[in-house]
């Protein structure tokens, strides 16, 4: 039987939503920055520390065995969630940023002077700067796939940029600023024609669309736990097993070794080769419980509902004649970025917060994208399946107050 979508029950699962900010009910529209945590995740972390904590892969005692089992079960659940071929392909990291840094660091051995790395105009700084650094180290050239005025990636330009010199393409699946959904399957297909590796920044996509890494045929997929209703400080680097095996370790120390002598060290197998030191055990457990929680919901209906809220908000924003949307792709996720004529986003954000509405204002770590649109920042409302139409009305009322005050 199909599960029903019950907004009231879902909201009860997120205790943080039930509070007032500056005397108004909280309307949390900063989900693209970080999602809130269901009780199940909060309790799982508490229970772990109260009952099961020890170090993993170390001791023979009961607590160490339990912690190890929970940690590895989490890896298996995550592998299943993204349909990885084996849990060896799931490396735990601090988050998307670290996952991309692992790749930009370890892939550099395969890059030589004059090779080309492709990223797009809409990338987050964390998918720009690591590649810039790789180019400085290796003499490779960073090339930018352009976007159009709607904020859509220009595939025809990508085809022209691709050549035998292209070694890596690293693009976002969904833009954190514009909400644009990129045609990553097509990008991967094109890249593989040139034998280039493809890295996908899935930080936004992981919470809004089912991910099947085998169907996508992507070489690497990266995401953060905290944007998927899990804890902060835990993330995932997915990589095809044969490729991860080819890469050198990222950091060195305990856990990632097989045998150490003063003369020589041999490294552990996947995924431990990339997990030096004691990992974020509680974080990985919390992330797996977040996935269990999401699997307990009618996830397709949740995604559908998020877009309903997005469309409703978009329609209500039309009542303001001074608003300009930034990012109007034909394929979008539930993120709305906009600017208001002669009014700075930061001032709007402060006034909205006084009315209980949490939005993000600024450049959203996408400065080159701001430059493309010739703006300094936007007001961004990003939605989750726990948001309501009443909250959207609260946003609209608060915007009315802000515009009146600042005009």
């Amino acid at each position: 039987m199909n599960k029903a979508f019950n907004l009231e029950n879902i909201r009860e699962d997120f205790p943080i939503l039930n509070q007032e900010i500056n005397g108004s009910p909280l309307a949390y529209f900063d989900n693209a920055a970080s999602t809130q945590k269901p009780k199940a995740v909060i309790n799982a972390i508490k229970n772990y520390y109260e009952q099961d904590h020890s170090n993993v892969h170390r001791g023979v005692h009961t607590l160490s065995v339990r912690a190890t089992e929970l940690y590895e079960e989490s890896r298996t659940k995550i592998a299943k969630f993204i349909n990885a071929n084996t849990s060896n392909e799931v490396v735990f990291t601090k988050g998307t940023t670290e996952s991309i840094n692992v790749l930009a660091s370890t892939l550099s051995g395969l890059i030589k002077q004059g090779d080309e790395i492709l990223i797009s105009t809409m990338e987050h700084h964390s998918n720009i700067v690591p590649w810039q650094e790789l180019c400085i180290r290796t003499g490779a050239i960073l090339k930018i796939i352009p976007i159009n005025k709607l904020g859509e990636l220009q595939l025809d330009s990508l085809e022209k940029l691709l050549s035998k010199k292209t070694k890596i393409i690293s693009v976002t699946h969904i833009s954190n600023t514009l909400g644009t959904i990129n045609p990553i399957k097509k990008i991967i297909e094109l890249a593989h024609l040139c034998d280039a590796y493809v890295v996908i920044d899935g930080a936004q996509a992981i919470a809004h669309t089912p991910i099947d890494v085998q169907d996508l045929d992507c070489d690497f997929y990266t995401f953060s736990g905290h944007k998927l209703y899990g804890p902060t400080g835990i993330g995932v680097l997915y990589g095809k097993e044969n490729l991860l095996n080819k890469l050198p370790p990222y950091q060195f120390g305990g856990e990632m070794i097989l045998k150490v002598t003063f003369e020589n060290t041999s490294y552990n197998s996947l995924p431990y080769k990339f997990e030096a030191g004691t990992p974020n055990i509680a974080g990985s457990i919390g992330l797996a419980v977040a996935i269990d929680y999401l699997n307990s919901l009618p996830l397709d209906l949740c995604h559908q509902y998020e877009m309903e809220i997005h469309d409703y908000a978009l329609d209500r924003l039309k009542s303001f004649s001074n608003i300009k949307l930034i990012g109007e792709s034909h394929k979008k996720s539930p993120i709305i970025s906009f600017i208001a004529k002669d009014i700075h986003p930061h001032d709007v954000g402060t006034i909205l917060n006084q009315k209980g509405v949490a939005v993000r204002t600024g450049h959203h770590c996408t400065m080159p994208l701001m430059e493309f649109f010739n703006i300094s920042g936007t007001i961004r409302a990003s939605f989750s399946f726990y948001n309501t139409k009443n909250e959207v009305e609260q946003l609209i009322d608060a915007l009315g107050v802000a515009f009146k005050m600042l005009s």
Partner: protein
Amino acid sequence: MDKKLQSLYQETILKHGHDPKNFGKPDRYDQFAEGFNRLCGDKVNIYCKYNFNLELEITFESVSCVICTASASLLTTELGGSSKETAIELIDTVLDGLHCSTLNQKPLSKQLTMLDGVKEFPSRIQCAALPWATTRKAIIESKTRLE
């Protein structure tokens, strides 16, 4: 209307924020510094010029919010005509007042104490402080043709 918001966006602040004084890049200047607000990407350029009596004239350009623009505008009117030393003294007093939420306890002009509203909004203190810190950088760190 919310009292805290009213205190942040007082009439004087909104006036200076929307129609700032001494805005623009001068033809010639003796010292210059640019300041960035890492949190929001705002940018302020400060231009300092000294007359024959070594008195300051300050103008600015910015891409910034109302609070930052107003703060820069007030700065130019307050520091205009000051010596370098007096300017630094006033800048340090304002920065200390902003960062320690004690602006209204400082011996400052009435219009400057209006920036005190930011103390209720910790994330906006940097907006008000940026032009002052940038001017300090221009006066202290950039070389003048007079020295």
